[in-house]
C-alpha cells in the first residue's frame, strides 16, 4: 500500500469516526424539525420534508421547559462558582504549601468521589427535607458542590503544581502577604486551569440526573435532564416534541465543546499527563 492510499484510508476512517459520533445527533435534529406524523411513514424520510418549527413552539408553549432550562442554568452556574471558591484555595494549599495530613485529606476527597451517589441521595434527601429545602436550588447546589469538589481539587492541584515554585517568594519579597501572593499572583496565572475546571464542573452539573430526580417533585422545580427523563417515561411518546426539547437542552454543552474543546481535553487528561 502506497503512502498516498494509506493517508486516504486514514481520512476515510476519520470521517467514519466523526459520522458515528454525529449521526445520532443528526437524527434527533431531523426528528425535531419534522412533522410528528413523519416518523410513522414507511419508509422513513432521512431528512425533514419540509422542515417545520412547530415542535420547538410546542416545547416553549405547552410545558415548563423554559423554566427547566432556567433552573439548570442557575444550578450549574452557582455550583461551578461555589465549587471553585471552595476548591481552588484547597488545591493551592495541597499543591504548593506544606500541609499536615495531606494524604489523609486527598484520600477523603477520593472517598467522596468513589462513594456510590445512589447511597448518598437518600440521607441527603432526608436532611434537605428537614431543612425544608426540597424543590429549591440549594437542595441541588449543595450535593453537586460536594460531588464536583474532588474533580476541581484534582484538576487545580495539577495546574498549580505546574507553575514555577519561585513565584510566591518573589511576591513575598515585593511585600505581598501570603494570601495576596495567592490571590494576585497565582490565581491570575492559573486562570486557564480554573477555567478548564469551571467548564467540566458546569457540564457535570448541567447533565446530572439522579439527585435532580429525587430532590425535586414539582414540574417548575425540575432541571432539564429530569424534565426530559420523565418525558420519556410517558406512555404515548410525543417523540417530535421530545426531540426538539433534546436539541434545545444540548445546545449549551455542545457550544461549550465547540468553543473550548482544547481546554476540555486538557482538563480530562490532567493528572495523567505530566
Amino acid at each position: 500500500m502506497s503512502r498516498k492510499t494509506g493517508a486516504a484510508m486514514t481520512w476515510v476512517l476519520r470521517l467514519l469516526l466523526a459520522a458515528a459520533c454525529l449521526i445520532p445527533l443528526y437524527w434527533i435534529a431531523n426528528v425535531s424539525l419534522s412533522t410528528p406524523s413523519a416518523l410513522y411513514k414507511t419508509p422513513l424520510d432521512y431528512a425533514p420534508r419540509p422542515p417545520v418549527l412547530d415542535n420547538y413552539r410546542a416545547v416553549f408553549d405547552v410545558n415548563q421547559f423554559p423554566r427547566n432550562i432556567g433552573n439548570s442554568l442557575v444550578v450549574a452556574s452557582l455550583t461551578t462558582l461555589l465549587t471553585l471558591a471552595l476548591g481552588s484555595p484547597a488545591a493551592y494549599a495541597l499543591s504548593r504549601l506544606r500541609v499536615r495530613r495531606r494524604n489523609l485529606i486527598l484520600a477523603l476527597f477520593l472517598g467522596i468521589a468513589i462513594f456510590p451517589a445512589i447511597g448518598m441521595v437518600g440521607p441527603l434527601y432526608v436532611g434537605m427535607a428537614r431543612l425544608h429545602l426540597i424543590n429549591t436550588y440549594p437542595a441541588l447546589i449543595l450535593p453537586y458542590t460536594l460531588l464536583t469538589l474532588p474533580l476541581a481539587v484534582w484538576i487545580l492541584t495539577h495546574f498549580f503544581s505546574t507553575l514555577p515554585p519561585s513565584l510566591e517568594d518573589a511576591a513575598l519579597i515585593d511585600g505581598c502577604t501570603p494570601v495576596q501572593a495567592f490571590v494576585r499572583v497565582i490565581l491570575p496565572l492559573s486562570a486557564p486551569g480554573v477555567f478548564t475546571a469551571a467548564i467540566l464542573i458546569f457540564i457535570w452539573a448541567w447533565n446530572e440526573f439522579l439527585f435532580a430526580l429525587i430532590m425535586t417533585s414539582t414540574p417548575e422545580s425540575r432541571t432539564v435532564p429530569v424534565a426530559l427523563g420523565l418525558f420519556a417515561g410517558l406512555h404515548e411518546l410525543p417523540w417530535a416534541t421530545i426531540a426538539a426539547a433534546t436539541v434545545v437542552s444540548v445546545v449549551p454543552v455542545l457550544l461549550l465543546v465547540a468553543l473550548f474543546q482544547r481546554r476540555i481535553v486538557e482538563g480530562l487528561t490532567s493528572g495523567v499527563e505530566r
Partner: protein
Amino acid sequence: MNIRQEARLAAWLIAPSLIFVAIVGAFPVLSQFVLSLTEYNLKFAEERSFVGLGNFAKLATDAVFWRDLAQTFEFTVVSVGLELVLGLAAALLLNRVIRGRTAMNSAVLMPWALPTVVAATMWSLILNDRIGLVNSVLGRLGLMGEPIVWLGPRFAMVSVILADVWKTTPFVAIILLAGLKSIPRAYYEAAELDGAGRWQVFRSITLPLLKPFIAVAVLFRAMDAFRIFDLIWVLTGGASRTETVSIYIYKTLFRYADLGYGSAMTVTLFGIVFLMSIGLVRFMRVAVETR
C-alpha cells in the same frame, strides 16, 4: 514565611472545603455504614433494630442481588472492553491530525458532553422497533425480516451497551490520545530507520508506552460503569435482564423503603469500587514515574 506560618495558612485555605465536606458529605456517607448494620424499613419504622452483619448475610444469599451483580459485571466488562478497543482506534486516528483538528476533536467530544439522560432518550428513539432509524435502515437494506425489538428481552443488554459505548468511548479516546502525544517522536524515527513495520512499531513502542494510560482509562471507566444508573434507568428501567446493582439499590431504598438493606448494598458496592480505586492510584503512580 516560616514553616509554622505556612502550615497555618494552608489550614485556613483547606478548612472551608473540609468543613463543607463534613457538613454535607459526612452525614450521608457515615449514615450508610450505620444503617447497613440495622434492620430499618420506613414502612415498619417502629421495628428498627441493630442486626450486626445480618443484612450482609442476607445479601450473600439474595439471588436477585447476585443476578444483578453478574449483570453489572457483564455490562462493565463488555462495554469497557469495547470502549478500550474503539477508543484506542479513535485515538490513533485523532493523533497527528493537522487540518481540521478542532472539528475532529469537537465531533468526538460531543457524545461525551451530552447529558446521559439525553443520550439514553435519543437511543431509545433510534432503537425503537416500529419507528426507529436502525430498523428502518436495516429494512431498506433488506437485512431484516421482522422488526427487531432492540429494547426487548433478547437485545436489551446489547442496546444498553451500545448506548454506553457511544457515549463514553470519547473519554477513553481522549485519555489515550494524551498518552500517544507523550511518546517521544524520536522513538518512531529510530524505529523507521531500523526498518520496523507498522505493526511491529505499534506492538513494541506504542502499546508498551501506552500501558499506564490504558490502565487509568479502563479503571476510571470501570468504576463508573459499575455504578451505572441513569442510562439503564431511562432505556429499560432495569427490565429484560439489564438491572444493575445501582438500580436494585434504587428500588430497595425508594420503592421498598428498606433503608437497612439498601444501605448494606451501597456499602458493598462502595467496597468493590474502592478496590478498583486502589488499583487506579497504583497505576497513576506508575504512569507518572515512567515519564
